[in-house]
């Protein structure tokens, strides 16, 4: 789990891990991968849900399944796991924010990737969906997968390592930083 205040750099860390941003210093090392390409080993679910509004939920997932390779669950099965079986034929444009997020999370299930990068995955999810997500994360870890998630909520994990990102004191206005820093 990656925790930290708004703007601390949690998402930027995930961006670096996903290869979207170049690190200012240091290097990414990937060990024990079948083939050395990082982007082929990971799923990334960020703030933007990467869904096409004009396509149905099922079409979006069918595309992701064919495009990403190493297919796992069928789109309808994945939607059923997320409790969205009834919305499979609806264009994503008609879905609510929480439902879209669930469709984006269903992408984790249609293609098999060992590393999941989740950027605040619980955003817009109701409590029932959060429970489903907790179970998915637990299952994935049980199968030997890695989950790196930025979050403000516990994600139902008790044994996870937590990385707390603190903002460098210099970048903040001097008056506010100490008071908020105490709570961390």
């Amino acid at each position, binding site marked *: 789990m990656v925790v930290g205040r708004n703007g601390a750099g949690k998402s930027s860390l995930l961006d670096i891990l996903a290869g979207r941003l170049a690190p200012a210093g240091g290097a990414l090392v990937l060990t024990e991968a079948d083939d050395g390409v990082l*982007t082929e080993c990971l799923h990334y679910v960020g703030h933007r849900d990467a869904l096409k509004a004009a396509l149905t939920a099922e079409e979006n997932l069918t595309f992701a399944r064919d495009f*990403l390779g190493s297919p796992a669950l069928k789109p309808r099965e994945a939607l059923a796991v997320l409790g969205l079986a009834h919305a499979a034929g609806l264009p994503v444009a008609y879905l609510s924010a929480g439902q879209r997020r669930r469709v984006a999370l269903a992408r984790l299930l249609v293609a098999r990737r060992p590393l999941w990068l989740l950027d605040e995955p619980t955003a817009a999810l109701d409590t029932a969906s959060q429970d489903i997500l907790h179970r998915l994360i637990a299952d994935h870890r049980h199968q030997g997968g890695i989950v790196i998630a930025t979050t403000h909520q516990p994600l139902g994990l008790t044994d996870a390592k937590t990385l707390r990102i603190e903002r460098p004191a210099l970048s903040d206005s001097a008056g506010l930083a100490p008071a908020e820093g105490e709570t961390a």
Partner: protein
Amino acid sequence: MRSFRALLIRDLRLAARVGGSGLMGLVFFLSIVTLIPFALGPDLNLLSRIGPAILWIAALLATLIGLDRLFQADQEDGSLDLLRLSPAPLEMVVLAKVTAHWLVTGLPLALAAPFFGLLVALTPDAMLAMVATLLVGTPALTFIGAVGAALTASLRRGGVILAILVLPFMIPSLIFGVSAANAATGGTIPFATPFLILVALSLIAAVVGTVGAAAALRSGE
């Protein structure tokens, strides 16, 4: 290959669902071609002489329509991040998207050219030549445009910049497209000479455009 097909089908399906650029390009093409006879007056000889040039300029401008959304739409909703996670290289992503875009914009333009040729009093020979030159020439326009589209993907109002960036590079295709179409209706040079250069330009654009657009997308983040 599987990824290529998946992306191609997705983009074609999106184009069919949203409507938009393909049809809009065609209507824009039509409106330019209809405007020019009004401006020039009812001189059929003049019209049929400059007809190929009019059609080619109209096709060139119509190609620009919708080109700015080629990568921008994916950039905005985060799909571009998803496209980066494919086992296939980014070049293939570009190739699939450009192919889909050409199928819904360039191809209809080429096929509609005979009907629009009527408006500028083209002879049947010239109409055939127009279809042939647009068919092999418009891919070059789309590929060149793709580089500009990739460069301006993250700009909010990239459309105008895109046009300014890519139009100069479309000039060679314009020159040889028009001269091939003119050669078909008479003149001193054989049709094949400019036509083959046009084909070569498209092939070069396909390679350079694909690699260039992929490089622009990579550095764009």
